[in-house]
């Protein structure tokens, strides 16, 4: 598949990362250190903001490809 490297600016990246943070918080909430917890907390809230901003501010991009199949 024509997959390039992970695009860290994409919504998908932020949202997936957020889900990972949430899972790790839910799974081992008693084992995470306070430092780690606060790190996750700050990172999580930042990612939520990023995702929200993306959804609310983004405008659909559409581009026409002029390949040889265009008439």
């Amino acid at each position: 598949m024509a997959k390039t490297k992970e695009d860290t600016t994409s919504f998908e990246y932020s949202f997936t990362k957020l889900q990972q943070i949430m899972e790790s918080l839910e799974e081992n909430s008693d084992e995470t250190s306070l430092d780690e917890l606060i790190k996750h907390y700050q990172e999580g809230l930042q990612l939520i903001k990023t995702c929200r901003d993306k959804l609310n501010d983004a405008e659909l991009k559409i581009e026409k490809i002029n390949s040889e199949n265009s008439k």
Partner: protein
Amino acid sequence: MTDNNFLSVSDLTLLIKGVLENKFSEVIFTAEISNFKRHFSSGHLYFTLKDDKSQIPAKMWKNSAMRLPFEPKDGMKVLVHGSIDVYIPHGSYSVIVSEMEHFGLGELLVKLEKLKQKLASEGLFDADRKKPLPEFPRRIGIVTSETGAVIQDFKRVAAKRYPVLEILLFHANVQGQGSVQNVCKAIAEANKPEYDLDLIVIARGGGSIEDLWTFNEESVVRAIAESELPVVSAIGHETDTTLVDYVSDLRAPTPSAAAELILPDKVDLLERLAQIESIIKTNVTGRVQNIKAVVESFSKSYILNRTKDVINDNKVKLDEISTELLERVNMKLLNTKNVIHNYEKILNSVSPESTLRRGFAIVEKDNNIVSKANKLVKDDKVVLKFYDDTRKAVIQ
């Protein structure tokens, strides 16, 4: 030169109508039905009669249609009895069908069924060939006509649901001459790594079975089967099914439904974000409260309180000591006073005054105390010192 010297369009049309309707007042021919529609209120039937080279529009009025022994369908081969009718406002002709006999499945559908079975036997429609679709597509390609309503419908739904999406439009004619090659090339083009797409949507609006025939063509089906990217088909309306629908990884009933199926919904996502936010906050608040509770319980612990007790005890002791010290100092002072008082008493008791009080007197001569009688002779003048006063005397 006036208009009256020449035929008008309507004169000509009227002439044609006379000739055609006379000449073809009763025709019998075989045809395949397509684009069949029953008018919802009048009950008249409208459809196209065709073979592989030609087609004629056809109408069947309700009173004739009611006598039909079968329900006409697209692709049916029929024997038609009817007459030619010229419609003056459009200068167009059509067949008014009076009777129709069912000739079995149309050749087209038979061919289609054969092709479908062949491709199925090759495994092209197998479920385990279906590629999963990404949950959050970033960039997608859409193969459709740049002029059709399809791209507008798709854009509208996509912008509402998932505005972070990027769409690349690969234009292809989706009907008629060259459309098969167009669509095949567009699919291959969209698969090029330089476009970095997550999936391809192949879309076309509704139309007759002939209009959609491109998507029943073997080469188009194979082009989709060869696509490395997942392909979503969205051809025609819900009731239309083409071979492309079988081979694609996901079949959407319409182009706007395709957008709904492949794209997450902004409203849901914002709700999920709010949930995640509250989970994260609750989790962290919970942890912090736990830590607080631990700190509190520690502060109430024996060790800490013991220390406090020791401090308090010592405070009391210190107070006690200071009080005692003060008392001792006071006592000492008092003792000293008493001692001094006693000394005073003793001193007083040994002074001559007290002796004098008891009736003694001191004899002084020339300011010296006379302690012996033989120190005095006749006519010596002496001073007698009594306890309260002095008197002068002369010795006899």
